[in-house]
């Protein structure tokens, strides 16, 4: 386990847990929707549709639960091009992180866009989700977004 490197004892330490998160009713509805290839948001008191949904109105603190389907297409509100993906990134080729406001939504969600090159990216561009073959009910059921 320990080895002397450059005169110092060093050792690898791995912190690894398979967290199982209970999601409650609102996120539960969102993730269930993903298994059916639908994206849903929640209606806040001011009428905004928040995507991904939250259980409590960010302005009033009230519990909110009215789910509304949005998208599937949407608009990139900001993006960042990654030339060299990290091991844990969703795609293993160059891609963009993006905030995407789905049609009908009042907030943007974080995901990735598979656009081939940075030159194909632009704020305001339209994108649509590419779905996993067999959705499991988590955010990675959307493999990525792609230019429309």
């Amino acid at each position: 386990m320990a080895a002397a490197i450059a005169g110092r004892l060093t050792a690898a330490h791995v912190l690894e847990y398979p967290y199982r998160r209970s999601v409650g009713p609102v996120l539960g509805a969102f993730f269930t929707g993903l298994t059916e290839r639908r994206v849903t948001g929640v209606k806040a008191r001011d009428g905004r549709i928040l995507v991904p949904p939250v259980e409590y109105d960010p302005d009033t603190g009230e519990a909110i639960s009215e789910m509304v389907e949005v998208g599937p297409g949407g608009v990139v509100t900001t993006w960042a091009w990654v030339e060299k993906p990290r091991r844990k990134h969703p795609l293993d080729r160059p891609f963009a992180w993006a905030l995407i406001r789905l049609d009908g939504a009042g907030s943007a969600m974080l995901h990735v866009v598979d656009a081939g090159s940075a030159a194909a990216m632009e704020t305001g561009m339209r994108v649509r989700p590419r779905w996993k073959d067999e959705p499991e009910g988590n955010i990675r059921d959307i493999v990525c977004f792609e230019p429309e």
Partner: protein
Amino acid sequence: MARREVAIVGFAQSASVRRETALNEVEMLMPILGEAKAQAGLRGPEIGFTVSGSCDYLAGQPFAFVSALDAVGAWPPIAESHVEMDGAWALYEAWVKLQTGEADSALVYAFGKSSMGDLPEVLTLQLDPYTAAPLWPDAIALAALQARAYLEKTGRSERDLAAVAVRSRRAAAANPKAQVRTTADVETLLATPYLASPLRAHDCPPISDGCAALVLACGEAVRRSAMPPVWIRGIDHRIEAHALGVRDLAASPSTRLAGEKAGATPGGVDLAELHAPFTHQELILRDALGLGADVDVNPSGGALAANPMMVAGLIRIGEAAARLAAGAGRRALAHATSGPCLQQNLVCVLERD
């Protein structure tokens, strides 16, 4: 209730380094705590309250802060607390404690060895654990989303960002505790590749190991100090919504509000130490705080030159105080941030007699 006047009477920090392999946290902290206390003219048992800031996830083990107490010499037992936050918030807790009148002096310290893990990945765990963290966006990618939102909203350019980096690194050249102390010019920096566009390496902070300690005092305890007291005239902190997609990333309303509540009036300060780990964040913070071109921003080099996590915010306060104490100005503003893309911010207004 009238506020008690609280002064910073001691400050010390380790040099920030890319990887501290020789010393553990306790060995790093001991000389720094000793130096801060010596400046304040206070011995351990005379200090009324001790509070620290750190984060277990940097070290990858639960209760990582517990053993750091060994550096303090907590005997006889001490009144002590810990925040799982940057040390700037530990300083806030200490300031509150002094306001209650239960203590007349406080030792604040913070430590972080970011080099132990893969920091951009570790910071992913700060995100919404249901819909954001499972995608594993790293801290640099998130900052890049913010940077583009800022540039496109304000019409500023990547050149403006590089100019921030150049200025910070030049300032850091005079700071022996800083880590990144040399720089190329703007043109050369702009020719380097993106880490995550629109951010290049110079737009991002270094990964740093380090620690810092600061002593606060009230009333009679202030007189013991070897350092000219620097008074905390106002301090406040605010948080905003978490999800990036509901925030205006090009602005920092929580910084603006904290600044107002702390009494940071535009035009009223000679220098400012802003905890801006990314170049564009310095510009966002300047806007939020109304800092004009006449204010000397980050004369230490700032977090772009040395960014020990959980410490860099506290260092901003200490650096600002040390500069005032050395006569570099009369009034200063110090700022600390926490969370992705400036989610939480603290502003502190300092003044020399």
